[in-house]
């Protein structure tokens, strides 16, 4: 009887621990989602990647360093879509955003809500960052500004947006 009680106690403790961990992860994701809503970030070009990709450094802001890291990829894809970047060193030339009309974000709100959903949004398919790359961490006032180098697959992203009817292809209408 005692053994059964012990087993039950251990199982309960495991379940509670698991619940707390997943709740913490969920909370981190929620925090990242909340912080990303304001789209506070800066992007800069750090080099010419392979054809069809862009290598950029994205600076994200958050009170928690881990949250800023989590939202970096989202910000990078959003930046390529809506901001573009100016030129810089390493042979970088200025880059237009993939979407010329910023009001599209409001017009197709549902599409972008799904696209940038932190729980498996499609944006994850178009961005990668090396786990070896060390983020640049800066403390600005009460929050962190964290820079991470990521690669955005711009060709695939553009094709996906064309397919979804968000942007027009070069040959559309002909």
């Amino acid at each position: 009887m005692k053994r059964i009680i012990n087993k039950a106690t251990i199982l309960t403790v495991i379940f509670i621990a698991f619940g707390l961990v997943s709740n913490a992860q969920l909370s981190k994701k929620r925090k990242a989602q909340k912080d990303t809503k304001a789209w506070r970030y800066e992007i800069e070009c750090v080099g010419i990647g392979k054809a069809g990709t862009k290598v950029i450094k994205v600076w994200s802001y958050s009170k928690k360093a881990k949250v800023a890291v989590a939202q970096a990829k989202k910000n990078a894809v959003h930046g390529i879509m809506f901001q573009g970047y100016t030129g810089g060193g390493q042979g970088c030339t200025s880059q237009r955003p993939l979407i010329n009309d910023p009001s599209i974000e409001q017009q197709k709100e549902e599409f972008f809500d799904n696209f940038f959903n932190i729980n498996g949004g499609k944006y994850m398919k178009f961005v990668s960052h090396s786990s070896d790359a060390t983020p640049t961490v800066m403390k600005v006032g009460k929050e962190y500004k964290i820079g991470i180098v990521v690669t955005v697959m711009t060709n695939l992203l553009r094709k996906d947006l064309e397919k979804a009817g968000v942007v027009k292809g070069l040959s559309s209408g002909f």
Partner: protein
Amino acid sequence: MKKTFIALTLLLTGFTLAFGQAKKPTLMVVPSDVWCSKNGYMMEFDNQGTKIKIPDYKKALQEDADLLLVISSINDMMAERGFPLKNMESALKTLASNAAEDNMRSSKETGASVAENPIDMLKKVAKADIIIQMTWTINKTGPKKSITFVLQGLDAYTDKQIAGANGTGAPSFSAETPVLLKEAVTAHIDNFTGSLQAHFEDMFANGREIIVRIQTWDDWDGDLESEYGDDDDELGTIIEDWLADNTVKGRFSTTDMTETMALFEQVRIDLYNAKGRAQDARRFVKGLSKYLKNEPFLIPNKVVMKGLGRATIILGGK
């Protein structure tokens, strides 16, 4: 009922496929005169005492491997965007083989040759609606090497630059020229296609921009100052009124007007005519041609075209 529905759907689909698309411009990558001159690919002619230099594209394409690499890279990236380009080397080869075939061809019954007037001969050149002109220069500072790359999209009819991208790449100690060139194309192609896309969007919104010329045969007894109608309007003014009525939002500029010729630039025409068919400069000017042939003008005329964006009416006969 179901059959009728299917038939109607098929009919509508067919109509959309047949008439729903604007005339697609052709694009071709061409090295600039500056590049040809710097790399020794120019031909020199003596034109009555004046030395004239023209680019020797055939020689450049046969001898310069870097040029092939750049053209092929641009062609690849444009094809990937659903807009395959005309290949200049193939266009030149086709022209040569067509000319050889035409010279050998004769009618089986009469032995007659293929008719060709001097204008036909002049028109036998590699052409496209939009020329992608490119230039690159290799900059050297000590052991370091960088590439300045310029891409210009030029409308063959209006002579306007409708797209462009340019810049200088990062200096490198070790990279070979072809690697730097490939990197330059990769760095600039997105901006180039972005500005080309903006041009197409403007075209869909405000119409295609064309050039219309009016000329007169020297044996015609009328001219553009001849007066017609109850108001005694001059023919030049009548043509301007027709353009104002038939262009998108009445947009055109009268660049030149004499008694023997008129030049209209920035003429914006609808991409589709009243029948829903795709429209180019020739189809648009045919409307003016018919208008002038009918009462009260009764002016016989000839329409001459040049690609999608330039057409000329010669008044006074065919």
